[in-house]
């Protein structure tokens, strides 16, 4: 749990230090997030067993932490990296930030191929998209293991 807090604190400090331009998609998202529902607030409320979570099962608590990391912490890390890449456009660092964004988005378990590795059962945002493509009928026609959203993002 200590590692988790350190990780979240790290990303939070990064985000707050970003000083994002107003009215961009990233700044709207991050500002709304810090105000209303940042992951560490939710996780600490969960661990303190506030009234809202006192009836939560172990399974539910696990899901809350796991999905907070995936849907909030990692998602914002991607946004942060993309924002940094845009700000350093034309500089060498820009490519490095893009690499960071892709790594936070896809993780390492997906391997080097564009379609990732469905059988590796990753839990990144990338994996989330192909988890649901069959259910939502949004799998890519040329590669049914991957979603159109992932294919489009990689173009």
């Amino acid at each position, binding site marked *: 749990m200590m590692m988790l807090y350190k990780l979240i604190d790290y990303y939070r400090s990064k985000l707050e230090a970003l000083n994002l331009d107003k009215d961009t998609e990233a700044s709207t998202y991050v500002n709304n997030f810090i105000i209303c529902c940042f992951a560490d607030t939710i996780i600490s409320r969960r661990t303190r067993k506030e009234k809202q*979570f006192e009836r939560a099962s172990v399974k539910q608590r696990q899901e*809350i932490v796991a999905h907070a990391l995936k849907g909030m912490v990692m998602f914002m890390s991607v946004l942060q990296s993309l924002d940094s890449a845009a700000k350093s456009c034309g500089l060498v660092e820009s490519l490095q930030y893009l690499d960071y964004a892709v790594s936070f988005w896809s993780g390492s378990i997906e391997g080097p191929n564009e379609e990732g590795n469905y059988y590796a059962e990753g839990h990144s945002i990338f994996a989330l998209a192909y*988890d649901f493509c069959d259910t939502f009928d949004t799998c890519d026609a040329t590669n049914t293991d991957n979603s159109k959203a992932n294919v*489009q993002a990689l173009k």
Partner: protein
Amino acid sequence: MQVSLLQAAIFYAWNMDGMNKNDSSGIIGSGYIMANSILPILKAPDEKSALLFKENTEFIVEGNHMKDGAVAVFDSFSLAISGMTNLDCSLIVELHAYNFCIHDRPQPSISSTQYTSENKETQHIAFEVREYN
């Protein structure tokens, strides 16, 4: 990138429908947190829809989840995503008979008879494949 988060939030909300405060399923935890993760995205085009989605996916201490009904919540949700100018709705499409791009392209909304418990059972089974252990 936000497509997968939106799909996850929709999927878990669908499965939360009808579950009550005593249900110990992990889906409730997933639904609550994925809804929170997309609130900032929903809030930008339609604050009212974001609030409705939040209220219906809260980690409740009384009553049932999705208290306003899945159809009402998803109608509002689809209206909100139609306002996201940078989102290609065709990447989200539909969950069973419910088309989330209804406000982008004129198609009939789901009827109450199409929205059956049988559909939901199928979804629960599909979910088991990749649920966290």
